[in-house]
C-alpha cells in the first residue's frame, strides 16, 4: 500500500509540475529579430484647440534588412494618452514595439513647457526601460532631429547621446542628465531638473544651452554663456575652459576643474549662501601673460585676474538668476532645507531670489604647458 501511495504521490507531483509550467498561457519570449527596438523617442504635443491635445511620439530605430544593411526608420504614434500612442504605433510597424533600449528622449520645447509628468510616470513604472537614457529638450519638432543622417552613426539618436556624453569635457557640464537623475530631482524639495537644450544650426545638431524645469514644467532656457556659469556654480568637480581676452590676438586659455562648496546661514528672516569655488587647472594657450611659466609674480597675477573675472561673471549671473529668471537654478534650496528643516512650506525659488549669495573664487595653476611660443 505504501508503495502505491508513493507512486500516486510522484505522479501527482509530476503532473502538477507539467500542467503548471507548460500549460496555461504560452509564454512567448521574443528574439531580437521579432522586436522593433527603438534607439530614441521624441515626445511632443499637437494642439487642436484649447482642450484637445494629442501626444505625438516619433520613434527612431535601425531596421536591418535581410542582406545586413541598416536603414533608419521613423515611426510615430499619436494618441490622447501616451499609452494610446503605443496602440497607434503598433498597427504601423512590422514587429512588436520595444522601448527597453532607448538611449534618448527628445522632449520638444512645447511639450516641456506643458509638463512632462505623464512621460515621467509611464517610464518610471516600467522596469524594462533603461534608466540611463538621456533627457534632452529640443527646439522645434523632434522628427527634424531624427531625420538627420550623421556620418559615422546609424541614427541621430546615437549621435545625440554621444554628444551629451562628451559634453562633460567642456563648459562645466556634469553629464547627469539622465532619466534616473530627473526622477531624483523633479519633485525633491529644493532640487530641480536640468536638461541640455539642442537646436539645428547651420544644418548641424548643436547643444545651445540648458533647459531648467520647475517641477515638471520647463521654466527657463539658458544660453551657452549662462549655462557655463550655472554649471560651474551648480555642480561639483566639473571641467571647462575659461579665457581672459584683451583683443583678438592677446588671450589666455585656462582649462580647469572646479570644486565648489556651498554653505548656508540664516540671519533673521534672510538666507545667506556662500559659494566657495576652487579652480585648478592648466594653461593651454597663452598669448597674454609673458613669462607665466618662469616668473612667480606673473603666475600670481594671472590667478588673481582670473579669479576676479570669474567672480564678476558669477555676480552678473546671480543677479540675472535672482531678478530675471527668479528660479533657484543652483539648487541652493536643497542645501538650506538640509540645514533648516524640510516641508516647512517655504517656496525655495522665492527665498533664494531674495537671499544674499556670495561667491569666493580661488584659482591655481597646475602646469603651463611645455613652454611659451
Amino acid at each position: 500500500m505504501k508503495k502505491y501511495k508513493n507512486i500516486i504521490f510522484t505522479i501527482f507531483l509530476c503532473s502538477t509540475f507539467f500542467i503548471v509550467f507548460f500549460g496555461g498561457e504560452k509564454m512567448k519570449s521574443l528574439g531580437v529579430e521579432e522586436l522593433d527596438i527603438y534607439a530614441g523617442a521624441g515626445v511632443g504635443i499637437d494642439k487642436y484647440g484649447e482642450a484637445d491635445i494629442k501626444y505625438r511620439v516619433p520613434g527612431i530605430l535601425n531596421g536591418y534588412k535581410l542582406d545586413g544593411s541598416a536603414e533608419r526608420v521613423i515611426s510615430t504614434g499619436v494618441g490622447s494618452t501616451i499609452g494610446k500612442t503605443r496602440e497607434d504605433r503598433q498597427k504601423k510597424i512590422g514587429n512588436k514595439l520595444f522601448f527597453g533600449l532607448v538611449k534618448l528622449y527628445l522632449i520638444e520645447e512645447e511639450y516641456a513647457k506643458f509638463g512632462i509628468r505623464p512621460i515621467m510616470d509611464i517610464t518610471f513604472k516600467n522596469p524594462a526601460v533603461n534608466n540611463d537614457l538621456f533627457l534632452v529638450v529640443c527646439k522645434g519638432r523632434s522628427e527634424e532631429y531624427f531625420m538627420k543622417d550623421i556620418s559615422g552613426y546609424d541614427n541621430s539618436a546615437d549621435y545625440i547621446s554621444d554628444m551629451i556624453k562628451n559634453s562633460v569635457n567642456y563648459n562645466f557640464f556634469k553629464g547627469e542628465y539622465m532619466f534616473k537623475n530627473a526622477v531624483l530631482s523633479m519633485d525633491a524639495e529644493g532640487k530641480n531638473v536640468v536638461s541640455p537644450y539642442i537646436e539645428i544650426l547651420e544644418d548641424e545638431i548643436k547643444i545651445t544651452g540648458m533647459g531648467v524645469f520647475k517641477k515638471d514644467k520647463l521654466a527657463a532656457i539658458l544660453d551657452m554663456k549662462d549655462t557655463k556659469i550655472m554649471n560651474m556654480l551648480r555642480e561639483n568637480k566639473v571641467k571647462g575652459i575659461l579665457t581672459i581676452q584683451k583683443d583678438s590676438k592677446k588671450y589666455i586659455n585656462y582649462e580647469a576643474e572646479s570644486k565648489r562648496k556651498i554653505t548656508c546661514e540664516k540671519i533673521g528672516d534672510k538666507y545667506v549662501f556662500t559659494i566657495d569655488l576652487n579652480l585648478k587647472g592648466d594653461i593651454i594657450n597663452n598669448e597674454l601673460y609673458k613669462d607665466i611659466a618662469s616668473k612667480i609674480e606673473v603666475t600670481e597675477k594671472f590667478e588673481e585676474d582670473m579669479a576676479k573675472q570669474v567672480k564678476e561673471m558669477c555676480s552678473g549671473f546671480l543677479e540675472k538668476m535672482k531678478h530675471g529668471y527668479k528660479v533657484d537654478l543652483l539648487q541652493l534650496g536643497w542645501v538650506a532645507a538640509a540645514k533648516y528643516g524640510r516641508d516647512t512650506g517655504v517656496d525655495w525659488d522665492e527665498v533664494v531670489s531674495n537671499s544674499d549669495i556670495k561667491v569666493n573664487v580661488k584659482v591655481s595653476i597646475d602646469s603651463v604647458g611645455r613652454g611659451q611660443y
Partner: protein
Amino acid sequence: MQIEKKNLLTPNEVTFILIGIMIDVTATSLPNGMSPTSKQDGWISALLGAIYPLYIVFLAVYVSGKFPRENILVLSKRYLGKTLGNILNFLFLLSFFSYFPPLISTIGIIVRTEAIPFLSSIKIYVALFFIGVYAASKGIKVLGRLSTITFWMIIAIMIPTISILKQGSYLNISPVFGTGIVNIIKGSVYSAYDYSLMELIFLIYPFINDSSKIKSAALKATGFIAIIYTWITFITIYYMGKDIIPKTIWSFFTVTEAVQIDVVNNFRYVFTFFWIIIAFKSVAIFNYVCMFFLENFKKIKDKKVIYVIMSVVVIMIAKTYYGDRVDMEEIIKYTLPISVIYNLIYLTLIASLIWIKKEA
C-alpha cells in the same frame, strides 16, 4: 523532538536561521513604511525598531536558560494546562501563519513587476513550494545550511550598494534628527513587520548543540538584522531623498538600479534572482515550522500529504486575498498589530509564569 547530537545546529547555523526567518524581500520596502513619518531620519527609526526583537531575545534567553531542551509549545502546555496551552499554541501558529501568504504574494508581485511580467503568479507560487517543501522535509540541519547560503547572498546584495554613497548626498539625510524624536519613534513602529518572527527562536533553541551559546547567537542575529535594515533605510534616503521615496513601492530596488558594476549590465536582475533564492529559504522555513506546530498537536504519519494540503491552502489564500498589493496591505493593516501584540502577550505570559513559579 529527539534528535541526535550531530543533527543539532551549530550556534552559527542558529544565527543564520534566525536571520533567515526575519529577512525577506519585503525589506526592500522598509524605507517606504517609515518615510511619511520619519522623513529623512527614517534610518534612525529603523535602528530603534530593533527593540522589538531584542525584547523577544531577552525573554528567550531567560526561558531557554531554564529549559534548554524544551520549546515554548511544550512549556505553555505545562504551565497553562493542556487545553489552554493548546489553544494558545494554536493561536500562536495562526499569528505566525498570517505572514506566510503575504510573503509568497510579495515575491510573486516583485518578480512579475521587476523582472518577468508575463510569468503568472501561480507558476511562481508552485515553484516556491516545490522547492520549499522539499527543503523543509529534509530537516532542520538542511534549513540551517540553506540559511547559511542565503546569509552570504544577503551580504552579496548589500556590499555593492556601498558604492551608492558616491551618488547620493549627505544633504538628503539632513537635518539629522530634524523630524523630532516623537516622529522618529512613531516611525519605528512601521518596521515591526520586518523585525517580526524572531518569536520563532522559542521553537529553535532546543536544536542548538550548545545551549550556552543561544544568547550570543540570538544577539548576533538581531544585531546583523538591525545593521542591515538601518543600512537599507540609510542608503535609500541618502540616494533618493525623502520626497522621492514615496513615489516608489520598493525603494531599495530603485537604489540597486543605480549600482554600476562593470561586468554586470543591470544589477537589478541579479538582485531579483538573489531575492528569489532567499524566498525559497523563507518558504522552506515556514513550511518546516508549520509542520512542527502541527506535529506538536498530533503526531502526523503522512507528512507529504499534509505538506501538499498546506501548499494548496497557502497558494489559494495568497491568490484570493493577497492577490494584489493594495488588497494585501489592507489585510496586513489589521493582522500585523494583532499578531505582534498577541505574540508579545503570549511569550511574556509564559516567561512570567516560569519566573513566578521559580521564585515561589
